[in-house]
């Protein structure tokens, strides 16, 4: 079983890296880009647990380790195992 966790800054937190990417895109002429937020992706392989247990475990891991809840938020989903 695999899950993907996406961590990004909360909307209230300034993201200078995202801003820099946006400015670069504007410089290249992509004027329709209104905002860029940069984040992190974690693909995690799990074993020996049910889907239901994963639904408890993944948010716990995300809150405790992957994201800093003061500045970051996360979303996650099950992904296809190859």
């Amino acid at each position, binding site marked *: 079983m695999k899950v993907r966790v996406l961590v990004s800054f909360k909307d*209230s*937190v300034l993201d*200078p890296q995202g801003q*820099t990417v946006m400015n670069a895109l504007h410089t290249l002429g992509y004027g329709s880009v209104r905002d860029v937020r940069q984040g992190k992706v974690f693909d995690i392989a799990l074993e020996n647990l049910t889907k239901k247990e994963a639904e408890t475990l993944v948010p716990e891991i995300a809150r405790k380790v992957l994201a*800093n809840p*003061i500045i970051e938020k996360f979303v996650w989903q099950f992904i296809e195992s190859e």
Partner: protein
Amino acid sequence: MKFGVVQFPGSNCDWDTFTVLQNVMKQATVMLWHKDHDLQGVDCVVLPGGFSYGDYLRSGAIARFSPLMREVTAFARRGGLVLGICNGFQVLLEMGLLPGAMLRNKNLKFLCQHVHVRIENAGTAFTRAGRRGQVLRIPIAHFDGNYYAPPRTRDRLARGRQVVLRYCDADGALTDDANVNGSLDSIAGVVNEAGNVMGLMPHPERASETVLGSTDGRVIFASLIQTLSRRKTGAPRKTRGRR
């Protein structure tokens, strides 16, 4: 009085800090390995600067899971003095021993330069050898020193006078230019509510010997020594903030 300097894989200011405490400030000092479970009876724990665990995930994020940090948390909860310098500050934030978080510097550059910081609260265990408004010249060296706290935390910091140091110019004025990393309210150092845990981004250990161009950093170490000697002699403790 005994100081302990914690070594993580990737710490690189550990021996600078050790040398200043032992040779300049003349204090008994030991190194504490992050995998140990024993604080060796130290009176003050210092988390030094560096790049613990390569700054992977987030600066300071992995170091907090080292076995010794459980002891450091218990020590802090008992009122033990804990000082975090630079990466040590980041570790204390990730551990939740200090409020707030660090973002990347506003200009996205690693900043390695001398800055000025102003003592905002000279009533803490870490600044009592200084005076309010005193300007210190101390170097910084960091990528993630852009201090951030959500509005409610920011209010609590103000109420408890927990902001200890702010970036300023040579005359002590708070300007945008002087706030090199973009920190909220120019915050360079904070103390916890109980007043026994402090973190700061500038490196006082790099400004404690004349040969290095500034001895202003000694104020922090001298304050700790004063605080500890008062505690030993049973003199009333000057505490900041409220529980």
